[in-house]
């Protein structure tokens, strides 16, 4: 367990300490229930609930997933990448084929680089880039099924970087920018 994991483990253990709620809460709950019980019994409330008109909220991600473009991204400070296979698959084939995407980051001072995103469940150590091509050039290829994926680079386990050449970037729900790669949908 590294130092960071130890810290989170200590935080979790502290937060697991019991909390004692005022036992008088029970009486307040029962009083509120008793006050409303004579008006409408629970079974009647169920019927009311079942027959009520209501608004159903849908996640916007479902809608976003429909929007598509054939966009392939590459990561680099100075260069681009190319996806494979080179030939565009038919729409029918695209549903079953994966596309290999190369992620590249120029980071001369980095000791480690990983790409973290929807395609690896945001696991910071699942997809490490390698510095094989040239000093400071970090790269990895990832097979991706058709879809839209948010991702970021993590340098030395501490610094998050977005792709300066990415065709698309979106902020996550916490306002942090992520790059986006969309594969095979149109």
């Amino acid at each position, binding site marked *: 367990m590294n130092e960071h994991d130890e810290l989170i483990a200590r935080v979790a253990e502290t937060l*697991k300490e019991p*909390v004692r709620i005022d036992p008088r809460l029970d009486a307040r709950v029962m009083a509120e*229930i008793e006050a*409303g019980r004579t008006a409408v019994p629970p079974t009647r409330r169920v019927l009311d609930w079942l027959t009520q008109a209501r608004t159903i909220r849908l*996640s916007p991600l479902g809608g976003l997933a429909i929007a598509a473009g054939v966009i392939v991204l590459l990561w680099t400070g100075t260069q681009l990448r190319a996806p494979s296979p080179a030939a565009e698959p038919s729409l029918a084939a695209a549903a079953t084929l994966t596309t290999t995407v190369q992620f590249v980051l120029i980071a001369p001072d980095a000791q480690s680089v990983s790409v973290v995103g929807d395609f690896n469940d*945001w696991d910071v150590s699942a997809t490490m880039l390698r510095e094989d091509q040239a000093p400071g050039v970090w790269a990895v290829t990832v097979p991706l099924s058709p879809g839209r994926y948010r991702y970021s680079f993590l340098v030395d386990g501490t610094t998050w970087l977005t792709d300066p050449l990415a065709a698309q970037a979106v902020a996550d*729900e916490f306002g942090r920018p992520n790059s986006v790669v969309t594969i095979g949908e149109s």
Partner: protein
Amino acid sequence: MNGERDGLLVRRVLGGDTDAYAGLVARYRDRLGRYAVRMLGNEADAEEALQDTFVRGYRSLARCTDPDRFGAWMFGILVNRCRTHGAKRARRERLLVHDEGAMSGASVAHSEDRDAWREEIARALERLAPDQREAFLLKHVEELSYDEMHDLTGVSVSALKMRVLRAREELRRLLAETYT
């Protein structure tokens, strides 16, 4: 009543024995209260959310499809109520009430240091975005699986994992000075 299974108590309540519900409230008060206090940051808001949860639970009890898992069902209601209360109410002064008996055996030598550490954590937790705080508490404190978290929140597993990751990073950043 203390030894009765949840399912039996639920069926008694549905059969008209309202007092049996008090047994369920007492059984889950502190368990659910911990999440509410951690999520909302103070006891007053937590108790309000908790009371709301129990009352709503009673009124919806016929929809509890698995009475033996009453606690898990109530937890789902609580998560939603905490979202609502958290959005509506301003933070009040935090007052955590700990079970002193349960903590007396802790190995930390200096209670002042321990209290300061708890305060630091509470402060850091409060600074997380509510979505991050919720995901972190469900994963690391309530120890739910991502599938269970998805069932509770309706949020995709992938998004939940991102929230937990972001929460951990933010907590590390906020607590770095204290810890090192």
